[in-house]
Protein backbone atom coordinates (compact mmCIF):
# COMPACT_ATOMS: atom_id res chain seq x y z
CA UNK A 1 0.00 0.00 0.00
CA UNK A 2 2.84 2.34 0.76
CA UNK A 3 4.08 1.46 -2.70
CA UNK A 4 1.57 3.89 -4.08
CA UNK A 5 2.25 6.68 -1.66
CA UNK A 6 5.92 6.39 -2.65
CA UNK A 7 5.69 7.67 -6.23
CA UNK A 8 3.91 10.76 -4.93
CA UNK A 9 6.85 12.82 -3.73
CA UNK A 10 5.29 16.17 -4.52
CA UNK A 11 1.90 16.57 -2.88
CA UNK A 12 -0.04 19.14 -4.85
CA UNK A 13 -0.98 22.33 -3.08
CA UNK A 14 -4.60 22.23 -1.95
CA UNK A 15 -5.37 25.16 -4.23
CA UNK A 16 -3.95 23.40 -7.28
CA UNK A 17 -7.20 21.63 -8.11
CA UNK A 18 -10.62 21.80 -6.58
CA UNK A 19 -11.71 18.35 -7.66
CA UNK A 20 -9.50 15.37 -6.92
CA UNK A 21 -7.97 14.72 -10.29
CA UNK A 22 -5.11 12.92 -8.62
CA UNK A 23 -2.25 15.21 -9.49
CA UNK A 24 0.15 12.77 -7.90
CA UNK A 25 2.77 13.57 -10.51
CA UNK A 26 3.55 16.59 -12.64
CA UNK A 27 2.05 16.09 -16.12
CA UNK A 28 5.30 15.25 -17.92
CA UNK A 29 6.36 12.70 -15.32
CA UNK A 30 2.85 11.22 -15.47
CA UNK A 31 3.11 10.79 -19.22
CA UNK A 32 6.58 9.26 -18.98
CA UNK A 33 5.50 6.76 -16.33
CA UNK A 34 2.31 5.83 -18.15
CA UNK A 35 3.99 5.47 -21.54
CA UNK A 36 6.71 3.26 -20.05
CA UNK A 37 4.11 1.06 -18.38
CA UNK A 38 2.07 0.96 -21.57
CA UNK A 39 5.14 -0.25 -23.49
CA UNK A 40 5.67 -2.92 -20.86
CA UNK A 41 2.04 -4.04 -21.13
CA UNK A 42 1.91 -3.95 -24.92
CA UNK A 43 5.32 -5.48 -25.63
CA UNK A 44 4.19 -9.13 -25.19
CA UNK A 45 1.31 -8.46 -27.59
CA UNK A 46 3.71 -6.87 -30.08
CA UNK A 47 5.87 -10.00 -29.89
CA UNK A 48 2.78 -12.16 -30.34
CA UNK A 49 1.73 -10.40 -33.52
CA UNK A 50 5.19 -10.10 -35.08
CA UNK A 51 6.17 -13.67 -34.26
CA UNK A 52 3.02 -14.99 -35.96
CA UNK A 53 3.50 -13.00 -39.17
CA UNK A 54 7.19 -13.85 -39.59
CA UNK A 55 8.06 -16.51 -42.09
CA UNK A 56 8.48 -19.89 -40.37
CA UNK A 57 12.23 -19.70 -41.03
CA UNK A 58 12.57 -16.30 -39.41
CA UNK A 59 10.30 -17.35 -36.53
CA UNK A 60 12.68 -20.20 -35.77
CA UNK A 61 15.77 -18.01 -35.96
CA UNK A 62 18.11 -17.36 -33.03
CA UNK A 63 18.69 -14.75 -31.91
CA UNK A 64 15.15 -13.54 -32.59
CA UNK A 65 14.55 -10.45 -34.71
CA UNK A 66 12.86 -7.52 -33.00
CA UNK A 67 11.31 -6.23 -36.22
CA UNK A 68 10.15 -8.87 -38.70
CA UNK A 69 12.25 -8.90 -41.87
CA UNK A 70 9.78 -11.06 -43.70
CA UNK A 71 6.03 -11.01 -43.86
CA UNK A 72 4.19 -14.27 -44.32
CA UNK A 73 0.87 -15.84 -43.49
CA UNK A 74 2.44 -19.27 -43.69
CA UNK A 75 2.05 -19.86 -39.94
CA UNK A 76 -1.69 -19.28 -40.20
CA UNK A 77 -1.92 -21.54 -43.24
CA UNK A 78 -0.03 -24.19 -41.27
CA UNK A 79 -2.78 -24.10 -38.65
CA UNK A 80 -4.87 -25.92 -41.24
CA UNK A 81 -2.37 -28.70 -41.84
CA UNK A 82 -2.13 -31.82 -39.81
CA UNK A 83 0.22 -31.48 -36.82
CA UNK A 84 0.97 -35.05 -35.86
CA UNK A 85 -2.69 -36.05 -35.87
CA UNK A 86 -3.81 -32.72 -34.48
CA UNK A 87 -5.89 -30.36 -36.60
CA UNK A 88 -5.82 -26.85 -35.16
CA UNK A 89 -8.56 -25.63 -37.46
CA UNK A 90 -10.76 -28.36 -35.99
CA UNK A 91 -9.75 -27.15 -32.53
CA UNK A 92 -10.80 -23.61 -33.42
CA UNK A 93 -14.23 -24.89 -34.48
CA UNK A 94 -14.49 -26.94 -31.29
CA UNK A 95 -13.68 -23.87 -29.22
CA UNK A 96 -16.21 -21.81 -31.13
CA UNK A 97 -18.86 -24.50 -30.68
CA UNK A 98 -18.53 -24.81 -26.92
CA UNK A 99 -18.25 -21.03 -26.50
CA UNK A 100 -21.37 -20.23 -28.49
CA UNK A 101 -23.39 -23.06 -26.98
CA UNK A 102 -22.34 -22.23 -23.40
CA UNK A 103 -23.04 -18.53 -23.99
CA UNK A 104 -26.53 -19.11 -25.44
CA UNK A 105 -27.40 -21.54 -22.66
CA UNK A 106 -26.17 -19.25 -19.90
CA UNK A 107 -27.88 -16.18 -21.32
CA UNK A 108 -31.25 -17.88 -21.85
CA UNK A 109 -31.32 -19.82 -18.59
CA UNK A 110 -30.07 -16.96 -16.42
CA UNK A 111 -32.40 -14.42 -18.06
CA UNK A 112 -35.42 -16.62 -17.30
CA UNK A 113 -34.27 -17.35 -13.76
CA UNK A 114 -33.17 -13.77 -13.09
CA UNK A 115 -36.57 -12.49 -14.20
CA UNK A 116 -38.36 -14.99 -11.99
CA UNK A 117 -36.21 -14.16 -8.97
CA UNK A 118 -36.76 -10.42 -9.48
CA UNK A 119 -40.41 -10.34 -10.49
CA UNK A 120 -42.21 -13.64 -10.04
CA UNK A 121 -41.57 -14.62 -6.41
CA UNK A 122 -42.80 -18.03 -5.34
CA UNK A 123 -42.46 -19.98 -2.16
CA UNK A 124 -38.83 -20.97 -1.73
CA UNK A 125 -37.55 -18.67 -4.47
CA UNK A 126 -35.37 -16.75 -2.05
CA UNK A 127 -33.81 -19.95 -0.76
CA UNK A 128 -33.07 -21.17 -4.26
CA UNK A 129 -31.52 -17.80 -5.11
CA UNK A 130 -29.36 -18.00 -2.02
CA UNK A 131 -28.20 -21.53 -2.90
CA UNK A 132 -27.34 -20.27 -6.38
CA UNK A 133 -25.09 -17.63 -4.88
CA UNK A 134 -23.28 -20.22 -2.78
CA UNK A 135 -22.09 -21.83 -6.00
CA UNK A 136 -19.94 -18.73 -6.42
CA UNK A 137 -17.92 -19.90 -3.44
CA UNK A 138 -17.15 -23.43 -4.58
CA UNK A 139 -14.31 -23.73 -7.07
CA UNK A 140 -15.29 -26.06 -9.88
CA UNK A 141 -11.75 -27.46 -9.89
CA UNK A 142 -12.72 -29.17 -6.66
CA UNK A 143 -15.59 -31.17 -8.13
CA UNK A 144 -14.08 -31.96 -11.51
CA UNK A 145 -13.65 -35.70 -10.86
CA UNK A 146 -17.33 -36.42 -10.11
CA UNK A 147 -18.24 -34.08 -12.97
CA UNK A 148 -16.20 -36.33 -15.21
CA UNK A 149 -18.08 -39.38 -13.86
CA UNK A 150 -21.47 -37.65 -14.09
CA UNK A 151 -20.87 -36.80 -17.74
CA UNK A 152 -19.86 -40.41 -18.28
CA UNK A 153 -23.09 -41.75 -16.79
CA UNK A 154 -25.07 -39.29 -18.95
CA UNK A 155 -23.26 -40.59 -22.03
CA UNK A 156 -21.59 -37.19 -22.46
CA UNK A 157 -18.02 -38.17 -21.69
CA UNK A 158 -15.49 -36.80 -24.12
CA UNK A 159 -18.28 -34.75 -25.64
CA UNK A 160 -18.19 -31.04 -26.54
CA UNK A 161 -21.86 -30.53 -25.70
CA UNK A 162 -21.20 -31.99 -22.25
CA UNK A 163 -18.27 -29.61 -21.80
CA UNK A 164 -20.47 -26.67 -22.87
CA UNK A 165 -23.13 -27.71 -20.33
CA UNK A 166 -20.53 -27.77 -17.57
CA UNK A 167 -19.09 -24.39 -18.53
CA UNK A 168 -22.60 -22.91 -18.79
CA UNK A 169 -23.48 -24.22 -15.33
CA UNK A 170 -20.44 -22.63 -13.77
CA UNK A 171 -21.26 -19.28 -15.32
CA UNK A 172 -24.91 -19.47 -14.27
CA UNK A 173 -24.58 -18.04 -10.74
CA UNK A 174 -22.91 -14.94 -12.12
CA UNK A 175 -25.47 -14.65 -14.93
CA UNK A 176 -28.46 -15.14 -12.63
CA UNK A 177 -27.08 -12.58 -10.23
CA UNK A 178 -26.54 -9.97 -12.93
CA UNK A 179 -29.92 -10.64 -14.57
CA UNK A 180 -31.84 -10.53 -11.30
CA UNK A 181 -30.30 -7.16 -10.52
CA UNK A 182 -31.02 -5.90 -14.03
CA UNK A 183 -34.69 -6.83 -13.76
CA UNK A 184 -34.96 -5.56 -10.18
CA UNK A 185 -33.71 -2.15 -11.21
CA UNK A 186 -36.55 -1.69 -13.71
CA UNK A 187 -39.34 0.20 -11.88
CA UNK A 188 -42.18 -2.18 -10.99
CA UNK A 189 -44.74 0.42 -12.11
CA UNK A 190 -43.62 0.06 -15.73
CA UNK A 191 -44.50 -3.60 -15.82
CA UNK A 192 -47.67 -3.09 -13.78
CA UNK A 193 -48.83 -0.42 -16.20
CA UNK A 194 -48.39 -2.83 -19.09
CA UNK A 195 -50.30 -5.55 -17.22
CA UNK A 196 -53.15 -3.16 -16.40
CA UNK A 197 -53.29 -2.17 -20.06
CA UNK A 198 -54.01 -5.81 -20.78
CA UNK A 199 -50.59 -7.12 -21.74
CA UNK A 200 -49.88 -10.72 -20.78
CA UNK A 201 -46.94 -11.45 -18.48
CA UNK A 202 -45.08 -12.73 -21.51
CA UNK A 203 -45.77 -9.59 -23.51
CA UNK A 204 -44.75 -7.36 -20.62
CA UNK A 205 -41.55 -9.38 -20.34
CA UNK A 206 -40.87 -9.31 -24.03
CA UNK A 207 -41.74 -5.67 -24.76
CA UNK A 208 -40.95 -3.86 -21.49
CA UNK A 209 -38.65 -5.85 -19.25
CA UNK A 210 -36.26 -7.49 -21.70
CA UNK A 211 -35.33 -4.33 -23.65
CA UNK A 212 -34.63 -2.49 -20.39
CA UNK A 213 -32.52 -5.35 -19.06
CA UNK A 214 -30.61 -5.74 -22.32
CA UNK A 215 -27.29 -4.35 -21.03
CA UNK A 216 -27.33 -7.12 -18.42
CA UNK A 217 -27.96 -9.71 -21.13
CA UNK A 218 -25.04 -8.41 -23.18
CA UNK A 219 -22.73 -8.37 -20.13
CA UNK A 220 -23.69 -11.91 -19.17
CA UNK A 221 -23.18 -13.12 -22.72
CA UNK A 222 -19.81 -11.43 -23.08
CA UNK A 223 -18.38 -12.72 -19.83
CA UNK A 224 -19.59 -16.25 -20.47
CA UNK A 225 -18.17 -16.22 -23.98
CA UNK A 226 -14.78 -15.07 -22.73
CA UNK A 227 -14.78 -17.65 -19.94
CA UNK A 228 -15.72 -20.49 -22.30
CA UNK A 229 -13.37 -19.46 -25.10
CA UNK A 230 -10.45 -19.28 -22.66
CA UNK A 231 -11.39 -22.30 -20.53
CA UNK A 232 -8.42 -24.59 -20.05
CA UNK A 233 -8.75 -26.79 -16.97
CA UNK A 234 -12.21 -28.25 -17.67
CA UNK A 235 -11.43 -28.77 -21.35
CA UNK A 236 -8.15 -30.48 -20.52
CA UNK A 237 -9.83 -32.98 -18.22
CA UNK A 238 -13.27 -33.56 -19.73
CA UNK A 239 -12.09 -33.98 -23.34
CA UNK A 240 -9.65 -36.82 -23.99
CA UNK A 241 -9.95 -37.25 -27.74
CA UNK A 242 -7.50 -35.13 -29.78
CA UNK A 243 -10.03 -34.39 -32.52
CA UNK A 244 -12.29 -32.81 -29.90
CA UNK A 245 -9.64 -30.68 -28.19
CA UNK A 246 -10.39 -26.99 -27.82
CA UNK A 247 -7.78 -24.53 -29.02
CA UNK A 248 -6.13 -23.69 -25.67
CA UNK A 249 -5.61 -27.42 -25.00
CA UNK A 250 -4.33 -28.16 -28.53
CA UNK A 251 -1.76 -25.40 -28.20
CA UNK A 252 -0.40 -27.28 -25.22
CA UNK A 253 0.47 -30.17 -27.53
CA UNK A 254 2.31 -27.74 -29.79
CA UNK A 255 4.17 -26.14 -26.90
CA UNK A 256 5.32 -29.56 -25.71
CA UNK A 257 6.99 -29.78 -29.12
CA UNK A 258 7.55 -32.58 -31.54
CA UNK A 259 10.94 -34.28 -31.51
CA UNK A 260 11.94 -31.80 -28.86
CA UNK A 261 11.49 -28.87 -31.23
CA UNK A 262 8.73 -26.33 -30.75
CA UNK A 263 7.44 -24.47 -33.79
CA UNK A 264 7.16 -21.08 -32.10
CA UNK A 265 5.81 -19.28 -35.16
CA UNK A 266 2.97 -21.75 -35.44
CA UNK A 267 2.30 -21.77 -31.69
CA UNK A 268 2.13 -17.98 -31.46
CA UNK A 269 -0.11 -17.87 -34.54
CA UNK A 270 -2.46 -20.20 -32.67
CA UNK A 271 -2.24 -18.03 -29.56
CA UNK A 272 -3.02 -14.97 -31.70
CA UNK A 273 -6.16 -16.72 -32.95
CA UNK A 274 -7.32 -17.24 -29.35
CA UNK A 275 -6.37 -13.70 -28.30
CA UNK A 276 -7.69 -11.69 -31.23
CA UNK A 277 -11.45 -12.27 -30.80
CA UNK A 278 -11.21 -11.35 -27.11
CA UNK A 279 -9.31 -8.14 -27.80
CA UNK A 280 -11.59 -7.06 -30.65
CA UNK A 281 -14.80 -7.83 -28.74
CA UNK A 282 -13.46 -6.09 -25.68
CA UNK A 283 -12.49 -2.95 -27.58
CA UNK A 284 -15.89 -2.78 -29.30
CA UNK A 285 -18.10 -3.67 -26.34
CA UNK A 286 -15.87 -2.35 -23.55
CA UNK A 287 -18.78 -0.60 -21.81
CA UNK A 288 -20.83 -3.78 -21.37
CA UNK A 289 -17.86 -5.92 -20.49
CA UNK A 290 -16.68 -3.58 -17.74
CA UNK A 291 -20.21 -3.04 -16.42
CA UNK A 292 -20.79 -6.79 -16.25
CA UNK A 293 -17.49 -7.40 -14.55
CA UNK A 294 -18.17 -4.77 -11.92
CA UNK A 295 -21.75 -5.80 -11.23
CA UNK A 296 -20.61 -9.39 -10.90
CA UNK A 297 -17.73 -8.44 -8.66
CA UNK A 298 -19.84 -6.50 -6.22
CA UNK A 299 -21.66 -9.57 -5.16
Amino acid at each position, binding site marked *: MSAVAAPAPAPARPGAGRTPKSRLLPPIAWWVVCVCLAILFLYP*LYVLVTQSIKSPAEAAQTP*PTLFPHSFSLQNFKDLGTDQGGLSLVKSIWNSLYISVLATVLTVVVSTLAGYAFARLPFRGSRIIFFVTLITFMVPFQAIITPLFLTLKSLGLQNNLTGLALVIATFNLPFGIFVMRNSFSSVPATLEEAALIDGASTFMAFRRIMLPLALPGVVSTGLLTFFAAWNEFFASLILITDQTKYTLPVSLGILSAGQNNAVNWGLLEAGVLVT*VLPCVVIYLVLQKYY*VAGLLSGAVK
Partner: protein
Amino acid sequence: MTIPPLTAAPPAVPSGAGRRGAARRPSSLQRRRGRLGAVLVLPAVVLLGVFFVWPLIRTVVMSLQEYPLLGKPTFTGFSNYSDAFHDQDFLSAIKFTLIYTVVTTPVLLAVGLLLASLVRRNTRGARVFQTIFFLPVVIGLASASYLWLFLWQSDIGPVTDLLDKAGLLDSSNNLFAHPGPAFLIVLGTVTWKVAGLQMLLLLSGMQSIPVEVNEAAMVDGSSRRQLFRYITLPLLRPTLALVLVFSVAGSLLAFDQFYIMTGGGPGNSTVTGVYQIYRVSFVQFHLGYGAALSILLMIGLGIVSCVQMLLLRNVDNA
Protein backbone atom coordinates in the same frame (compact mmCIF):
# COMPACT_ATOMS: atom_id res chain seq x y z
CA MET B 1 -18.51 3.24 -13.73
CA THR B 2 -19.42 4.16 -10.18
CA ILE B 3 -20.28 1.19 -8.06
CA PRO B 4 -21.85 1.24 -4.63
CA PRO B 5 -19.73 0.24 -1.65
CA LEU B 6 -19.31 -3.48 -1.33
CA THR B 7 -22.42 -5.41 -0.35
CA ALA B 8 -21.37 -8.98 0.12
CA ALA B 9 -24.46 -10.51 1.66
CA PRO B 10 -27.06 -11.29 -1.00
CA PRO B 11 -30.04 -10.01 1.01
CA ALA B 12 -28.38 -6.61 1.26
CA VAL B 13 -28.60 -6.13 -2.49
CA PRO B 14 -31.17 -3.42 -3.07
CA SER B 15 -34.16 -4.95 -4.78
CA GLY B 16 -36.80 -2.53 -3.60
CA ALA B 17 -39.27 -2.95 -6.40
CA GLY B 18 -39.46 -6.71 -6.37
CA ARG B 19 -39.86 -6.97 -2.64
CA ARG B 20 -42.61 -4.44 -2.52
CA GLY B 21 -44.60 -6.49 -4.98
CA ALA B 22 -44.18 -9.59 -2.87
CA ALA B 23 -45.29 -7.91 0.31
CA ARG B 24 -48.77 -7.20 -0.99
CA ARG B 25 -51.59 -9.62 -0.35
CA PRO B 26 -51.21 -12.45 -2.85
CA SER B 27 -53.88 -12.24 -5.50
CA SER B 28 -54.72 -15.01 -7.91
CA LEU B 29 -52.67 -13.14 -10.49
CA GLN B 30 -49.70 -13.19 -8.16
CA ARG B 31 -50.10 -16.89 -7.48
CA ARG B 32 -50.20 -17.51 -11.20
CA ARG B 33 -47.09 -15.41 -11.64
CA GLY B 34 -45.45 -17.32 -8.80
CA ARG B 35 -46.12 -20.61 -10.57
CA LEU B 36 -44.69 -19.16 -13.77
CA GLY B 37 -41.66 -18.04 -11.77
CA ALA B 38 -41.07 -21.57 -10.55
CA VAL B 39 -41.23 -22.84 -14.13
CA LEU B 40 -38.77 -20.22 -15.36
CA VAL B 41 -36.29 -21.07 -12.62
CA LEU B 42 -36.52 -24.77 -13.42
CA PRO B 43 -33.83 -24.95 -16.17
CA ALA B 44 -31.33 -23.23 -13.88
CA VAL B 45 -32.22 -25.58 -11.02
CA VAL B 46 -31.80 -28.64 -13.25
CA LEU B 47 -28.40 -27.51 -14.58
CA LEU B 48 -27.09 -26.55 -11.15
CA GLY B 49 -28.49 -29.74 -9.66
CA VAL B 50 -26.95 -32.08 -12.23
CA PHE B 51 -23.62 -30.33 -12.80
CA PHE B 52 -23.03 -28.77 -9.42
CA VAL B 53 -24.97 -30.08 -6.42
CA TRP B 54 -24.84 -33.73 -7.44
CA PRO B 55 -21.09 -33.74 -8.21
CA LEU B 56 -20.49 -31.88 -4.96
CA ILE B 57 -22.32 -34.54 -2.95
CA ARG B 58 -20.51 -37.19 -4.92
CA THR B 59 -17.15 -35.62 -4.11
CA VAL B 60 -17.91 -36.01 -0.42
CA VAL B 61 -18.96 -39.64 -0.84
CA MET B 62 -16.00 -40.46 -3.09
CA SER B 63 -13.58 -38.97 -0.61
CA LEU B 64 -14.57 -41.74 1.80
CA GLN B 65 -13.91 -44.44 -0.77
CA GLU B 66 -11.11 -46.19 -2.55
CA TYR B 67 -12.30 -45.36 -6.06
CA PRO B 68 -10.38 -46.86 -9.00
CA LEU B 69 -11.19 -45.76 -12.54
CA LEU B 70 -12.33 -49.28 -13.40
CA GLY B 71 -13.88 -51.66 -10.93
CA LYS B 72 -15.98 -51.20 -7.84
CA PRO B 73 -15.35 -48.50 -5.23
CA THR B 74 -14.89 -49.70 -1.65
CA PHE B 75 -15.74 -47.74 1.46
CA THR B 76 -12.61 -46.86 3.43
CA GLY B 77 -13.82 -44.26 5.92
CA PHE B 78 -11.52 -41.36 6.59
CA SER B 79 -8.34 -43.13 5.54
CA ASN B 80 -8.00 -40.91 2.45
CA TYR B 81 -7.94 -37.90 4.73
CA SER B 82 -5.45 -39.34 7.17
CA ASP B 83 -3.27 -40.38 4.21
CA ALA B 84 -3.31 -36.81 2.94
CA PHE B 85 -1.64 -35.50 6.09
CA HIS B 86 1.27 -37.90 5.56
CA ASP B 87 1.54 -37.45 1.81
CA GLN B 88 4.77 -35.54 1.17
CA ASP B 89 3.79 -34.70 -2.43
CA PHE B 90 0.52 -33.17 -1.30
CA LEU B 91 2.05 -31.33 1.64
CA SER B 92 4.81 -29.81 -0.47
CA ALA B 93 2.22 -28.82 -3.11
CA ILE B 94 0.21 -27.04 -0.40
CA LYS B 95 3.34 -25.38 0.90
CA PHE B 96 4.25 -24.17 -2.56
CA THR B 97 0.70 -22.90 -3.18
CA LEU B 98 0.82 -20.91 0.05
CA ILE B 99 4.22 -19.42 -0.80
CA TYR B 100 2.96 -18.54 -4.27
CA THR B 101 -0.13 -16.88 -2.78
CA VAL B 102 1.81 -14.94 -0.16
CA VAL B 103 4.24 -13.61 -2.77
CA THR B 104 1.72 -12.95 -5.55
CA THR B 105 -0.99 -11.17 -3.56
CA PRO B 106 0.98 -8.10 -2.42
CA VAL B 107 2.68 -7.77 -5.82
CA LEU B 108 -0.66 -7.79 -7.64
CA LEU B 109 -2.22 -5.40 -5.16
CA ALA B 110 0.71 -2.98 -5.33
CA VAL B 111 0.75 -2.95 -9.13
CA GLY B 112 -3.06 -2.69 -9.23
CA LEU B 113 -3.03 0.27 -6.83
CA LEU B 114 -0.20 1.93 -8.75
CA LEU B 115 -2.07 1.61 -12.04
CA ALA B 116 -5.37 2.74 -10.50
CA SER B 117 -3.88 5.84 -8.91
CA LEU B 118 -2.09 6.68 -12.18
CA VAL B 119 -5.15 6.49 -14.43
CA ARG B 120 -7.56 7.94 -11.91
CA ARG B 121 -8.27 11.12 -13.78
CA ASN B 122 -10.91 12.10 -16.21
CA THR B 123 -8.84 12.77 -19.31
CA ARG B 124 -8.73 11.09 -22.66
CA GLY B 125 -5.11 10.04 -22.10
CA ALA B 126 -5.98 8.38 -18.81
CA ARG B 127 -8.82 6.46 -20.44
CA VAL B 128 -6.51 5.22 -23.20
CA PHE B 129 -4.03 3.97 -20.61
CA GLN B 130 -6.88 2.33 -18.68
CA THR B 131 -7.78 0.40 -21.80
CA ILE B 132 -4.15 -0.59 -22.43
CA PHE B 133 -3.53 -1.78 -18.87
CA PHE B 134 -6.77 -3.73 -18.92
CA LEU B 135 -6.11 -5.37 -22.29
CA PRO B 136 -4.27 -8.48 -20.96
CA VAL B 137 -7.22 -9.22 -18.65
CA VAL B 138 -9.40 -10.29 -21.58
CA ILE B 139 -6.73 -12.72 -22.77
CA GLY B 140 -7.02 -16.22 -21.38
CA LEU B 141 -4.52 -17.26 -18.75
CA ALA B 142 -3.55 -20.21 -20.96
CA SER B 143 -2.85 -17.91 -23.93
CA ALA B 144 -0.87 -15.55 -21.73
CA SER B 145 1.16 -18.51 -20.47
CA TYR B 146 2.00 -19.74 -23.99
CA LEU B 147 3.04 -16.21 -24.88
CA TRP B 148 5.28 -15.70 -21.85
CA LEU B 149 6.70 -19.18 -22.27
CA PHE B 150 8.01 -18.01 -25.61
CA LEU B 151 9.20 -14.61 -24.34
CA TRP B 152 11.52 -16.26 -21.82
CA GLN B 153 12.76 -19.26 -23.84
CA SER B 154 16.48 -19.80 -23.95
CA ASP B 155 18.13 -18.55 -27.17
CA ILE B 156 14.96 -17.87 -29.15
CA GLY B 157 12.98 -15.93 -26.54
CA PRO B 158 12.86 -12.17 -27.28
CA VAL B 159 13.12 -11.12 -23.63
CA THR B 160 15.99 -13.46 -22.83
CA ASP B 161 17.70 -12.13 -25.94
CA LEU B 162 17.21 -8.50 -24.85
CA LEU B 163 18.49 -9.24 -21.36
CA ASP B 164 21.45 -11.12 -22.84
CA LYS B 165 22.32 -8.11 -25.00
CA ALA B 166 22.03 -5.92 -21.92
CA GLY B 167 24.50 -8.27 -20.26
CA LEU B 168 22.07 -9.29 -17.54
CA LEU B 169 21.92 -13.00 -18.26
CA ASP B 170 23.17 -15.70 -20.57
CA SER B 171 20.46 -16.46 -23.13
CA SER B 172 21.60 -20.05 -23.61
CA ASN B 173 20.54 -20.72 -20.02
CA ASN B 174 17.12 -22.38 -19.71
CA LEU B 175 15.41 -20.24 -17.09
CA PHE B 176 12.58 -22.71 -16.62
CA ALA B 177 15.08 -25.27 -15.36
CA HIS B 178 15.65 -23.26 -12.18
CA PRO B 179 12.93 -22.97 -9.52
CA GLY B 180 13.57 -19.29 -8.70
CA PRO B 181 13.56 -17.86 -12.23
CA ALA B 182 10.66 -20.14 -13.25
CA PHE B 183 8.66 -18.83 -10.31
CA LEU B 184 9.47 -15.21 -11.18
CA ILE B 185 8.43 -15.69 -14.81
CA VAL B 186 5.09 -17.12 -13.71
CA LEU B 187 4.71 -14.19 -11.31
CA GLY B 188 5.39 -11.79 -14.19
CA THR B 189 2.85 -13.54 -16.40
CA VAL B 190 0.13 -13.40 -13.76
CA THR B 191 0.87 -9.77 -12.89
CA TRP B 192 0.67 -8.78 -16.55
CA LYS B 193 -2.56 -10.70 -16.96
CA VAL B 194 -4.37 -9.75 -13.71
CA ALA B 195 -3.13 -6.31 -12.57
CA GLY B 196 -5.52 -4.55 -14.96
CA LEU B 197 -8.50 -6.24 -13.34
CA GLN B 198 -7.37 -5.09 -9.91
CA MET B 199 -6.86 -1.62 -11.32
CA LEU B 200 -10.42 -1.57 -12.63
CA LEU B 201 -11.96 -2.78 -9.36
CA LEU B 202 -9.91 -0.34 -7.28
CA LEU B 203 -10.67 2.48 -9.68
CA SER B 204 -14.40 1.91 -9.41
CA GLY B 205 -14.01 1.73 -5.64
CA MET B 206 -12.17 5.05 -5.67
CA GLN B 207 -14.82 6.62 -7.85
CA SER B 208 -17.54 5.63 -5.41
CA ILE B 209 -15.89 7.82 -2.75
CA PRO B 210 -17.98 11.01 -2.69
CA VAL B 211 -16.19 14.03 -4.14
CA GLU B 212 -17.40 16.10 -1.16
CA VAL B 213 -15.32 14.00 1.23
CA ASN B 214 -12.14 14.72 -0.70
CA GLU B 215 -13.03 18.38 -1.05
CA ALA B 216 -13.72 18.75 2.65
CA ALA B 217 -10.34 17.22 3.47
CA MET B 218 -8.59 19.48 1.00
CA VAL B 219 -10.32 22.58 2.34
CA ASP B 220 -9.08 21.53 5.75
CA GLY B 221 -5.58 21.63 4.29
CA SER B 222 -4.67 17.97 4.05
CA SER B 223 -1.89 16.99 1.68
CA ARG B 224 -2.13 14.47 -1.14
CA ARG B 225 -0.41 11.89 0.94
CA GLN B 226 -2.69 12.50 3.92
CA LEU B 227 -5.69 12.36 1.62
CA PHE B 228 -4.60 8.96 0.38
CA ARG B 229 -3.73 7.65 3.80
CA TYR B 230 -6.70 8.92 5.80
CA ILE B 231 -9.51 9.24 3.25
CA THR B 232 -8.94 7.06 0.20
CA LEU B 233 -7.52 3.96 1.88
CA PRO B 234 -10.13 3.64 4.67
CA LEU B 235 -13.02 4.30 2.31
CA LEU B 236 -11.50 1.86 -0.14
CA ARG B 237 -11.45 -0.93 2.42
CA PRO B 238 -14.51 -2.81 1.10
CA THR B 239 -13.02 -2.77 -2.41
CA LEU B 240 -9.63 -3.82 -1.10
CA ALA B 241 -11.30 -6.72 0.71
CA LEU B 242 -12.98 -7.79 -2.50
CA VAL B 243 -9.79 -7.51 -4.55
CA LEU B 244 -7.83 -9.45 -1.94
CA VAL B 245 -10.37 -12.25 -1.68
CA PHE B 246 -10.43 -12.58 -5.47
CA SER B 247 -6.68 -12.57 -5.85
CA VAL B 248 -6.02 -14.96 -2.95
CA ALA B 249 -8.66 -17.41 -4.19
CA GLY B 250 -7.20 -17.20 -7.69
CA SER B 251 -3.69 -17.89 -6.42
CA LEU B 252 -4.77 -20.78 -4.20
CA LEU B 253 -6.44 -22.39 -7.22
CA ALA B 254 -3.52 -21.74 -9.60
CA PHE B 255 -3.10 -24.40 -12.26
CA ASP B 256 -2.99 -23.26 -15.92
CA GLN B 257 0.13 -21.13 -15.67
CA PHE B 258 2.17 -23.84 -13.96
CA TYR B 259 0.84 -26.69 -16.08
CA ILE B 260 1.77 -24.80 -19.25
CA MET B 261 4.95 -22.99 -18.28
CA THR B 262 6.77 -25.22 -15.82
CA GLY B 263 4.94 -28.55 -15.96
CA GLY B 264 5.33 -28.56 -12.18
CA GLY B 265 9.08 -28.60 -12.55
CA PRO B 266 11.90 -28.41 -12.17
CA GLY B 267 11.67 -31.47 -9.96
CA ASN B 268 8.10 -30.96 -8.68
CA SER B 269 9.15 -27.64 -7.19
CA THR B 270 6.21 -25.74 -8.74
CA VAL B 271 3.36 -28.21 -8.27
CA THR B 272 0.31 -26.40 -6.85
CA GLY B 273 -2.59 -27.88 -4.89
CA VAL B 274 -4.92 -28.12 -7.88
CA TYR B 275 -2.05 -29.49 -9.96
CA GLN B 276 -1.46 -32.24 -7.40
CA ILE B 277 -5.20 -33.09 -7.39
CA TYR B 278 -5.04 -33.28 -11.19
CA ARG B 279 -2.08 -35.65 -10.99
CA VAL B 280 -3.63 -37.88 -8.34
CA SER B 281 -7.01 -38.07 -10.09
CA PHE B 282 -6.16 -38.04 -13.78
CA VAL B 283 -2.61 -39.32 -14.02
CA GLN B 284 -2.53 -41.85 -11.19
CA PHE B 285 -6.33 -42.42 -11.23
CA HIS B 286 -6.79 -42.48 -7.45
CA LEU B 287 -10.19 -40.82 -7.78
CA GLY B 288 -11.26 -41.28 -4.15
CA TYR B 289 -8.03 -39.87 -2.82
CA GLY B 290 -8.23 -36.98 -5.30
CA ALA B 291 -11.75 -36.22 -4.04
CA ALA B 292 -10.49 -36.09 -0.44
CA LEU B 293 -7.74 -33.66 -1.48
CA SER B 294 -10.40 -31.57 -3.27
CA ILE B 295 -12.51 -31.41 -0.12
CA LEU B 296 -9.49 -30.33 1.89
CA LEU B 297 -8.71 -27.66 -0.70
CA MET B 298 -12.32 -26.43 -0.63
CA ILE B 299 -12.33 -26.24 3.17
CA GLY B 300 -9.00 -24.43 3.20
CA LEU B 301 -10.17 -21.93 0.59
CA GLY B 302 -13.42 -21.35 2.48
CA ILE B 303 -11.59 -20.70 5.74
CA VAL B 304 -9.10 -18.31 4.13
CA SER B 305 -11.88 -16.35 2.38
CA CYS B 306 -13.98 -16.09 5.55
CA VAL B 307 -11.02 -14.99 7.67
CA GLN B 308 -10.14 -12.34 5.09
CA MET B 309 -13.70 -11.04 4.96
CA LEU B 310 -13.97 -10.89 8.75
CA LEU B 311 -10.60 -9.21 9.20
CA LEU B 312 -11.06 -6.63 6.50
CA ARG B 313 -14.62 -5.73 7.42
CA ASN B 314 -14.37 -5.62 11.18
CA VAL B 315 -11.44 -3.25 11.48
CA ASP B 316 -13.92 -0.59 10.43
CA ASN B 317 -16.27 -1.25 13.31
CA ALA B 318 -13.58 -1.63 15.91
